[in-house]
């Protein structure tokens, strides 16, 4: 699904990612953990193709293809989804309109006709229930005036609607109360399929009680310094990031 080899990334001449290697297979859930400021979001943005990041070395192979030359929208159409750490407000644009536009642009990319209205609305209904969303949410403007929890739920809702091959969820757990956390995690688990994969970025172990990862990676100072099973997350929780610092 995704393999990242020796990825080095700088922002304004300063090296942030210092040689990342990562292998994610279809059907897997990976967790990337690490303290603030170590480059987790940077990694997510670079995979999604955000501008302003200079890739100085390495490659990102997604579904067998180096995607570094693809635009963000092409990567999205290829099946890449990023759940934002800080979802952006788009005033006046309803979630319905936003998602219909997104789905239709993705379909156009694949040479398909626009989604029939009835089919689209039925899917909205289904996914709304999956995530226990309020009825009126879909008519509200994208993220405008949303609480932190609503924004995160909306990210997962969009993921459910867009059905990506690979979803990267950047700190989707932060700002969620326990109920919201459970709903979000249940959503992610229900959407899990043998042919898709998820990367969960978090700096708490808490989320991983609900979403059981196959592999846990610790990102520290621009490098993946440790990888292991889900027990690694518990170890981290127990010993703190200081432990990693002393080890690396």
């Amino acid at each position, binding site marked *: 699904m995704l393999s990242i080899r020796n990825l080095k990334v700088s922002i304004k001449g300063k090296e942030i990612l210092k040689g990342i290697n990562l292998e994610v297979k279809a059907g897997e859930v990976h967790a990337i953990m690490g303290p603030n400021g170590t480059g987790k979001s940077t990694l997510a943005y670079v995979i999604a193709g955000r501008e*302003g990041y200079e890739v100085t070395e390495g490659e990102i192979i997604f579904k067998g293809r180096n995607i570094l030359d693809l635009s963000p929208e092409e990567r999205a159409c290829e099946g890449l989804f990023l759940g934002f750490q800080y979802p952006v*407000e788009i005033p006046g*644009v309803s979630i319905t309109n936003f998602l219909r*536009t*997104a*789905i239709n642009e993705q379909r156009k990319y694949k040479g398909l006709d626009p989604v029939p209205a009835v089919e689209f609305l039925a899917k909205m209904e289904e996914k709304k229930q999956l995530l226990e969303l309020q009825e009126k949410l879909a008519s509200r403007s994208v993220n405008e005036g949303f609480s932190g929890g609503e924004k995160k739920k909306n990210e997962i809702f969009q993921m459910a609607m867009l059905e990506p091959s690979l979803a990267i969820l950047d700190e989707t757990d932060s700002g969620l109360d326990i109920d919201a956390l459970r709903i979000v995690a249940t959503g992610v688990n229900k959407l899990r399929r043998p042919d898709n994969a998820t990367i969960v970025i978090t700096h708490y172990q808490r989320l991983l009680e609900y979403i059981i990862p196959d592999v846990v990676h610790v990102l520290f100072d621009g490098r993946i310094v440790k990888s292991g099973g889900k027990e690694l997350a518990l170890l981290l929780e127990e010993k703190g990031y200081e432990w990693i610092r002393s080890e690396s």
Partner: protein
Amino acid sequence: MEKNQNNILEEVTTSDYKYGFHTDIEMDLAAVGLSEDTVRFISAKKNEPEWMLEFRLQSYRHWLTLTEPTWAHIHHQAIKYQDIIYYAAPKRKKELTSLDEVDPELLETFKKLGISLDEQKKLSGVAVDAVIDSVSVKTTFTDTLSKYGVIFCSFSDAVQNHPDLVKQYMGSVVPSHDNFFAALNSAVFSDGSFCYIPKGVRCPVELSTYFRINAANTGQFERTLIIADEGAYVSYMEGCTAPMRDENQLHAAIVEIVAMKDAEVKYSTVQNWYPGNKKGEGGIYNFVTKRGICKGSHSKISWTQVETGSAITWKYPSVVLMGDNSIGEFYSVAVTNNFQQADTGSKMIHLGKNTKSTIISKGISAGQSNNSYRGLVKVIKRAENARNFSQCDSLLLGDKCGAHTFPYIKAENHTSIIEHEATTSKISDDQLFYCKQRGISSESAIGLIVNGYAKEVLMHLPMEFAVEAQKLLAISLEGSVG
């Protein structure tokens, strides 16, 4: 990141004017230039009564004493009023009774614009008074309307068939001496629309007029008069697109609205005249005087406009709130791109007690354009408890364009409450990336964001118009933004 966004904006803003085409139809032209003879020629062409000619001549003589206003935030080369042809009418051999008799090329033009009369008739139930250049070519639905006693016809026909109404109301809202362009229009206006809704009648259909400038070097001087009698209601739509032209074309229209006691008039405009090319050459100069008067108590007038075209827009749809408890509204989206200039806004003049007005203005500037909001809220001494809320937002696309606001407030009564809010924003890289990450291209993303920004205004348009306007917003920024 910044740089890249500007590239996109530039790319998008340089797409050519989509509706730039020209129709060849035989024309009936006045001699070039303006004199008393020109005024007499126009009046004679239209077979007008003496009082109409007199109105024109007085206006012309007054115009001679005036100079062009210079206070607007616009710049253009001097308009050579003596180089303009003041009258052009498609030649017609006889009266038209059905669409079959309309010049096929004309019908073709409508088709290109997606507004074929045929389709309009069948699908939308909208009565269309199509104005190509100066003479009304075709009026539909007159039968349905006449059942309700609604008069909807060309201005020329109204002069012939309803002289009393025209005499009573023409110039009563926008006097011919109101301003330079109003005086010019009053002297040489070619045609336009007339609409009268009798007492207590809710006009059963949306009334719409499509204006289209079509003759090279021909100034276009439309005149519209709408009267809603006591308790009447009408929704009127005006929309236009124009063919590609090299020379600057002057347009100086007048729209007058009268709302009697308990009457309501909703006037919607989608304006998409040729804005000039990417270098700022050519394009329509659009100097319009639009004003309504809420004459009776509890009357209401609302202006909704989507302005995407013209090289220069100079336009301040206003409401004089004379009747107690009357309401004035102004909802506007003005887009400028490339070298377009817009100086637009509204005036709300509170004369009556408990009068209320709302101004929502959304400016969108791209390219190297300039977009100004100019507004006046005036409350006179005896206008107790007047209220106004104004919101003027500017959205900037790129960093070479300008947005300006000139709000003027004159309140002479201390019981009035006047609120003014203003914001300036940009489409952020975060917003664009968020959309792109969902698979939405930059162009669509900008269209989406801009339409979201303009939503508060678009929602006041009649349904079918709103859809058209949304497309137009995206298209006009497509060459410029998305």
